[in-house]
């Protein structure tokens, strides 16, 4: 299903286009009421953003000329499926002198194959190249 093209008049989506918003569990935005929270019908998982919503926000950002912000949202859309701990570990792996080139390339492959995170994988591969050139990779034998 292709996403609708949005512009600035659709923002804020929570006010103007709640019909387009769902939670990762498929609940509608308008169903996130206090009564349902208190009844235990809303989980912490429901209070997370979906990849589609991030892509909708990306199209709004593009429409107002914010190319890099939109690219960030598109990378973020790919990362929504990654568990919190794994995501933190990926971030730590990108710190200087933390990973070998092979480890970074393996991380990129994992992002691509496990999570279809092509933009994020591209960022990690780019880092692997730059880190090698600037000598901030971990030693292979560590």
């Amino acid at each position, binding site marked *: 299903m292709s996403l609708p093209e949005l512009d600035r008049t659709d923002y804020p989506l929570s006010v103007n286009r709640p019909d387009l918003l769902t939670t990762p569990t498929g609940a509608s935005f308008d169903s996130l009421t206090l009564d349902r929270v208190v009844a235990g019908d809303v989980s912490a998982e429901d*209070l997370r953003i979906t990849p589609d919503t991030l892509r909708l926000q990306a199209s*709004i950002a593009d429409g*107002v*000329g*914010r190319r890099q912000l939109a690219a960030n949202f598109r990378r973020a859309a790919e990362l929504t499926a990654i568990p*919190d701990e794994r995501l933190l570990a990926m*971030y730590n792996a990108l*710190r200087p002198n933390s990973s070998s080139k092979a480890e970074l390339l393996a991380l990129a492959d994992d992002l691509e194959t496990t999570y279809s995170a092509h933009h994020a994988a591209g960022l990690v591969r780019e*880092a692997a190249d*730059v880190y090698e050139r600037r000598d901030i990779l971990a030693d292979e034998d560590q």
Partner: protein
Amino acid sequence: MTTTAPTSATPGGVTPRRSLRTESLEARPVNLDGFVEEWPEKGMVAMDSAFDPAPSIRVEDGVVVEMDGTERADFDFIDQFIADHAIDTDAAMDAMALDTVEIARMIVDPGVTRTTVRDVVAGLTPAKLLGVANHLNIVEIMMGMQKMRARRTPANQAHCTSARDNPLQVACEAAEAALRGFSEIETTLGVVRYAPLVAMAQTIGAQVADEVPLTQCALEEATELELGMRGITNYAETISVYGTEPVFVDGDDTPWSKAFLASAYASRGIKMRFTSGTGSEVQMGNAQGKSMLYLEIRCILIAKGAGSQGLQNGSISCIGVPGAVPSGIRAVAAENLIASALDLECASGNDQSFSHSPMRRVARLLPQMLPGTDFVCSGYSAVPNYDNMFAGSNLDTDDFDDFNTIQRDLMVDGGLQHVGEREILAARQRAAEALQAVFEHLDLPRIRDEEIVAAVYANGSNDCLPRDVLEDLKGAQSVMDRGITGLDLVTALDATGFRDMAQNLLTVLRQRVSGDLLQTSAILKGMVPLSAVNDDNDYAGPGTGYRPSGERWEQMKRLRHVTSAENPETEVG
């Protein structure tokens, strides 16, 4: 930095007689501030150094192959990140062909739209941006800021901390900060293990009024992200970037790790901005002989390239460094302007204390307060300075009435308002009772009624009753171990009779489903997202842009003591 009064003993040990005028001036607070001569080789120069590179760019097949005199093969990782992610290569050749003075004039000229300026600036290299900034005097920088800030409506941010990490005090301070108009509040800790309790307390306190500030807890990157993911905080700001490669590596990050972190936050629907500031590279001992503003411009471009919606800059915790050199505070205003011109949200400093002089403190504030920025302070100490765990602030609780008066005098909206004591006490009381109830509900260390009375009427932590720190730290650990989330706080607030606060917190948490707070310069106004998308700055000269009016201006007219026009024997407000 400290200074010692210069003495000029003459040979023979006879001290020449000093005039009484000199003695009087020596006693002025400004002479406790530190000032140093410029030392360009060490980067102790604000914004105009002979060692800064000359602007240049060469683009081949859409790739920047030379920038500011450096060939691509010799780029450090910052050069490469900026070249590949920040600079708009389609705009670069035309933009770089313009004279720096012409671009500077476009920034100031109200006849040139914000969008036009933004699209030119997007194609500039760091050295070219520096050249532009060097043409602008302080008033022109303010003119530029008035037009270039992203959000039309200015706002303000506060620090809510406690020297004893007392969660009850922080809840009360957060409630008062909400009433006074702050759109964001942040806390940090003396004892880091206290973080979960204090962050919870701040978020609960923030929910007492109709206007709810977003909350954050400044910690090491990974911990800050974890609290955000749980929904105990609403945004993050301590994503530091630096202008030289060795300092960046010392900070244990790279532009790529930070870009990944930016996406990690967005993937959880959490608002985030980067942080940088002039002087950090000098302070960390590796400025590579470049001016402070040149290095800061590199930081701003990293934030832009990483897709961060915004940046906290304005020297921040390094303000003593630019504050000590000629034109340093002008450079700080220029870094805010460049962030805004690059279309980033700017939380514009006026943060850490830098001067003993009340006059200097105000002079340092005005370049942000007068034109308005996305957050005039980042932040204003909503606690007494001794309680400020961010190493103090340029403005604190003692300055509330002065700040509100300056807003009224100059008809300038710095985001705050005067609030009557009765209303403030009621909000502090309610926040304290809510925290007490939530702690009890979640089986966290007890808050006694007498603690509440002390905290509600307190000025600072010295007036609060001491907590059992060991018990609190056990409680803080259990918040983490049990995986308590923002949603648990909603449930607890509702279950204990604070339904309106539960509703407010749920409304804030729901925003991470919509992603609306991820857009540039987003805050909540009347519980609805207001950002540079639906409130984009439309300043185009006199008669346009944001001006306080209507209900807001009436609100700004109120002060602690205003004589009634109808009955001069009484006061209004």
